[in-house]
């Protein structure tokens, strides 16, 4: 792995400069990594798990990256803070989102299920968001703030009414890890990229979502899809993919007003730089940009089971019906 290239990954302008350099991605023999048809080779199986959070934590407010000692200490504390097996089921773990038993908290998955990564990005970045420069989401528009408040209020009242009121993920329909854009989460942070002369296909492990992206400007279907409609093109060393025509996921973040631009650049045999910009003027007062390294892994992508053997949704609704029968309050 070329450390200098990966360090530059932290700074968008430098990555773009690298993207213009044809010598950027080289195989071990020093030859540029190219597909048989001569395009940069971004194919392979990758993981995007990382401890670097999407938004910069308050304690690192003015620090884009951490020095090695601070980074090691933060990684160690995160591994402990998030470790489900260290949670006390009675006291809960409020700083990791689990309420005490007395407040209705029930631990779910144990640590066996998690694969969120054990390290920050190799450049020890404090946030995946690189723009705005403070590493935080831009402020919401007034309309989005209001819509979120209404959605939360409705959810508090009705989240146990029916499976149809649960999230796309609960319903095994779509996951934010697959997006697009791909965002890291607690597990299944893996994907596989295939390339041909005129298409790039992306298979994400969670829910086995796939996208086949034409690289020519073929006519777009006049429909909205959960994963939108994507078209790609090569700009030097970088695959640029633009996506729109999303269906509304009902969570405020993915819907018809989202315009996504993703950039994939092979930095070296082990790394693809993935950068995306969210343009959604109905939701955010400014665009924001995320940079997430895809690290090569030699494992296979297996089939993903979501419904099969999974009685979680049934348990949620049955539990709610039982509480209603007992005349007890349902807590979100």
């Amino acid at each position, binding site marked *: 792995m070329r450390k200098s290239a990966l360090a530059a990954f932290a700074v968008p302008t430098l990555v773009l400069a690298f993207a213009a350099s044809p010598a950027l991605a080289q195989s071990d023999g020093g030859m540029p990594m190219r597909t048989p048809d001569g395009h940069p080779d971004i194919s392979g199986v990758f993981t995007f798990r990382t401890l670097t959070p999407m938004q910069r934590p308050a304690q690192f407010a003015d620090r884009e990256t951490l020095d090695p000692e601070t980074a090691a200490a933060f990684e160690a504390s995160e591994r402990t803070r998030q470790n489900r097996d260290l949670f006390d089921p009675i006291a809960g773990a409020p700083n990791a989102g689990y309420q005490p038993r007395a407040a209705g908290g029930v631990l779910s998955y144990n640590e066996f299920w998690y694969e969120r990564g054990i390290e920050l990005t190799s450049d020890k970045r404090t946030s995946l968001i690189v723009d705005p420069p403070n590493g935080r989401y831009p402020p919401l528009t007034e309309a989005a703030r209001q819509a979120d408040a209404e959605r939360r209020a409705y959810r508090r009242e009705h989240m146990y009414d029916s499976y149809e009121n649960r999230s796309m993920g609960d319903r*095994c329909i779509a996951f934010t890890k697959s997006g697009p854009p791909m965002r890291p989460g607690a597990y299944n942070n893996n994907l596989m990229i295939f390339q041909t002369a005129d298409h790039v296909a992306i298979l994400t492990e969670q829910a*086995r979502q796939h996208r086949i992206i034409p690289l020519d400007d073929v006519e777009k279907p006049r429909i909205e*899809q959960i994963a939108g409609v994507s078209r790609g093109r090569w700009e030097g060393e970088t695959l640029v993919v633009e996506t729109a025509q999303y269906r509304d996921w009902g969570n405020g973040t993915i819907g018809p007003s989202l315009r996504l631009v993703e950039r994939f650049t092979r930095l070296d045999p082990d790394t693809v730089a993935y950068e995306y910009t969210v343009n959604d003027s109905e939701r955010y007062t400014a665009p924001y940009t995320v940079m997430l390294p895809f690290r090569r892994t030699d494992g296979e992508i297996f089939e993903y089971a979501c419904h099969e053997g999974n009685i979680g949704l049934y348990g949620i609704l049955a539990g709610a019906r039982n509480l209603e029968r007992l005349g007890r309050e349902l807590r979100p």
Partner: protein
Amino acid sequence: MNRLSHGRVGIGALLAACVTLAPAAGWAQPASPEAWEAPRTPWGDPDIGGVWNSSTVTPLERPEALADQAFLTEEEAAAVEARVVEANARANAPSEVRTEPLPVGGNVGAYNAFWIDRGTTVVPTRRTSLVVDPPNGRLPALTPEAEAHVNSPARQRLKAVREGAVPADSYAQFDWGDRCIWYRGVPSLPTAYNNNYQIVQTPDVIAIVQEHIHDVRFIHLDGRPRIDGRVSQFGGHSLGRWEGETLVVETAGFGDRAYLFSSGPGPQGGTNWDLSPDLRVVERFTRVAPGILDYAFTVDDPNVWTTPWTGSSPWARGDQPLYEYACHEGNYGMTNILAGSRAAEAGGRDR
């Protein structure tokens, strides 16, 4: 076993109406392979990438009435296809206005013709079945164990549940397709709709997107070893290689998920086979003519069939993109099946 034996408007009946001597039809119809070479990828393999469609009105097994007739004549094929078009037109005609409820306990029907997309043509070879071996065009006999399994009270009860003859206890009694988990199996046989595939081809790996349930299979060409046999997947684990013009794919590792589905010619229903962990499938993809990708497959499950069998299902080049596939979303079929079962029980009514 037939999930729904009623309501079949069979190609069997259509084919049985036209019996003459079988011509020696092959891929020479409609194009000669000698006169045509498959396009190549930039790295020199035959190019099988793109969108393909496997719809056909040719059944998996040769209708019994056709006995030794392995191929239709051109005239017979044209007659079959014309009758399919007529049948579709009849099915698409406006329904009779109904003023009285249907009799209680009867079959209320399911999808109308709008949903069905089986195509209107027989396979280009005009073969009378997708099965090419055994030579009689029919699947080999079941083994005694498989017969015993099919006829066991437990399996018969499951069949009755799936046919709606007795109330269903749980969604878990329904097949993988009804549960939106997996369709078709390996090999992937044509069914009533969503017979579309998109192949993405690279030197090391080939991905096949199956429109039905929006799933992806991939086939490794890089010579890697088979994964640990304790890992079982619905699509098994597929390893491929090029043999001249043909992509040969060997698949194993289905475990206890091994399963195959073929739908009959009617608007609904079909045949579901429970297969065994010993299932091995060899698939052969060959571009045999412009616009035709032959998909041949040999299925070997020594616990189910007394001999291996081979079929050929030509895929036609498609010119439309694949879209996302919704299975659960907006689909109240399972809820209604189970709610109907509970209502039937509450009413003390036997179906």
